[in-house]
């Protein structure tokens, strides 16, 4: 019987064999962030200029004099990737207009983690989205500052234990709720916003292709499972990504010209515990706490679905 799952397995084989990020980089076992970046580059192809923020993807790929990048790649600092990419995009525009380089479609891609996007990079990102540069901004969200040793960010989920939101007698992990970056990006009235997860590779690739085709800025928020920071087994990374989606922790949706629609919908969400039980960062959460979190997630999911149904 053909099911969605079978179809995905089949479709993955139709993807290009070309790798624009070379093997041999230094990512941890089971890193779903590097998988996400690989897929993003597969979707765009070689005609891209990529700007990365300081973070895991930069550190694993570019120890001088080595590089894992087969496409032009640029790292400047932590908080300014959107601004650097704005400069790249503007230069391409003006140099092509003046005939200094041949006209052709070159995608400007900015990539940053959740810290580099939702915390320190927020201002530069907002500026770039507002100015309307023709670029794709990808946030690879592993829900904490993993590169510096698992410190909390504003994208860390409620209850998660990190080295700066630890579990103690007076506090049970992260005490704030995950910042909704996709909604913030969408509030800039840009043409395309989406959430994605490398556990759904075809969906991710389709979204990146859409983003590349759009005129103007697009934003893709990608949940990237991090075994090191989440205290999970490397071989579970793909499964955990799927569970994040199926439990409503990380719904997959698009916002096209302001109109929401769900990429995947579930009549019934799986219990949150199926997702959290595999992760050491949630180990301390009691059933009561989990129920409280689940309640809020379900409300948010319902709200999102309502938006998708009305289209706004």
């Amino acid at each position, binding site marked *: 019987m053909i099911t969605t799952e079978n179809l995905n397995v089949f479709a993955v084989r139709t993807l290009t064999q070309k790798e624009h990020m070379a093997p041999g980089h230094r990512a941890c076992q089971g890193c779903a962030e590097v998988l996400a970046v690989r897929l993003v580059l597969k979707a765009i192809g070689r005609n891209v200029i990529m*700007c990365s923020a300081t973070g895991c993807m930069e550190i694993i790929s570019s120890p*001088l004099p080595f590089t894992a990048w087969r496409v032009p*790649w640029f790292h400047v600092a932590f908080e300014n990737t959107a601004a650097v990419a704005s400069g790249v995009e503007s230069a391409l525009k003006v140099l092509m207009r003046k005939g200094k380089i041949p006209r052709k479609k070159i995608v400007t891609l900015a990539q940053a983690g959740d810290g580099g996007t939702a915390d320190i990079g927020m201002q530069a990102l907002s500026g770039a989205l507002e100015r309307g540069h023709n670029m794709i901004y990808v946030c690879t969200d592993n829900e904490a500052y993993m590169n510096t040793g698992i410190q909390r960010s504003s994208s860390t989920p409620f209850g998660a234990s990190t080295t700066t939101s630890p579990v103690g007698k007076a506090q049970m992990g992260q005490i704030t709720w995950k910042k909704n970056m996709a909604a913030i990006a969408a509030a800039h009235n840009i043409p395309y916003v989406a959430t994605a997860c490398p556990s759904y590779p075809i969906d991710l690739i389709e979204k990146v292709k859409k983003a590349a085709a759009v005129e103007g800025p697009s934003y893709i928020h990608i949940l990237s499972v991090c075994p090191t920071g989440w205290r999970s087994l490397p071989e579970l990374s793909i499964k955990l990504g799927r569970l994040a989606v199926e439990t409503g922790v990380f719904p997959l949706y698009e916002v096209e010209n302001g109109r929401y629609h769900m990429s995947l919908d579930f009549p019934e969400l799986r219990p949150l515990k199926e997702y959290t039980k595999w992760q050491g960062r949630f180990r301390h959460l009691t059933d009561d706490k989990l129920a409280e979190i689940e309640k809020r997630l379900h409300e948010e999911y319902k709200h999102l679905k309502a938006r998708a149904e009305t289209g706004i």
Partner: protein
Amino acid sequence: MGKRVGMEVSIAAAEAVRQSKVDVISAYPITPQTHVVEHLSEIVANGEMDAEFFCVESEHSALSVCVGSEATGARSFTCTSSQGLALMSEITYIVPPLRLPILMILSNRTLSAPLSIWNDHSDVMSIRDCGWIQYFCENGQEVYDHVFIGYRLGEDRDVLLPVIVNMDGFTLSHVIEPIELIDQEKIDKFLPPYAPIYTLHPDRPVTMGAFALPSIFAEAKKAQEVVIRSSIPKILEVWKAFGDMTGRYYQPIETYKAEDAETLLLTMGSFGETASVAVDTMREKGKPVGLVKIRLWRPFPFDAFKEATRRAKRIVVIDRAVSVGGPGGPVASEVKSAVYGEESRPMIYDFVAGISGRDVSPSDFIKMVEKAEIEINEGNKEGYEIYGVRE
């Protein structure tokens, strides 16, 4: 000879950017730099210049945009002041090792606190060691000229470094001065189009901005140091070429009536012109006083400086910034280091004067020279004070 017109210095600077055919301009409004970008936005809006001009959400992004555009092969420009420079300072350190010849005009202005918008050099001194080539201009003509000089030098394949053109905020930026404009034809000959060796382009992928482990960092830093130090002959060569074109020959250290001077005033930036009036007055009274002006701040022209000052008995340094809790003002520290190894070295007295735009008149320079001479004669070897403080 080009046309000589009365023009606000900021507008002349903007005109120089237009004539340099800059591709990307990105800036954030901050006083007193604003007139430069306001005028540039008019030029672009009137279609007199084909450039991508945009206003970003902070100075940090203003320079970051230039980093992106310059790396892609576009001649890029930004300008800032004071707090803006402090905000973008993180990126100023990243540009030189990337070898991106961005040009930035700094309308020098006081760093807070207390908040003050007026002129001194505390902003640029905060990034003294960031690795950009740094010029200090004495008047509007120098600002206009150094935009072309800066791009030509920075983009030279033996140099490939970013350049800061310092102009004193308000004292220069908002003053109307006679500027001799250079014909576009001449500029085009002097400043060829930007032809970088490596750019970000999919046809020839390169990785820029890799990180360095301790095993290679020192080598990378040394390479940067070697490049800026060895750029001095090139700096002189570009000034020579510019002089041959315009008749205005610049030197890293300029002197005025310094040959036989026993006491030398030392200034940087627009104070030079006022100080020269003071020198004239003192000379009329038979006092052997001269003036030395530093035009090239980085790389510091040690040889030229030593040559200009070796016959003097005393140097009276006029600093425009305070190195709080340190050995005096930053220029005096530099100068002391420069002459330390000399067999006979002049005594150095350091005044921090005119901070936050407080007026310093020719008579103040005279007072400072007199005070320094008395102090030095009385054996004060560590002379340093903030001049004119009401106590």
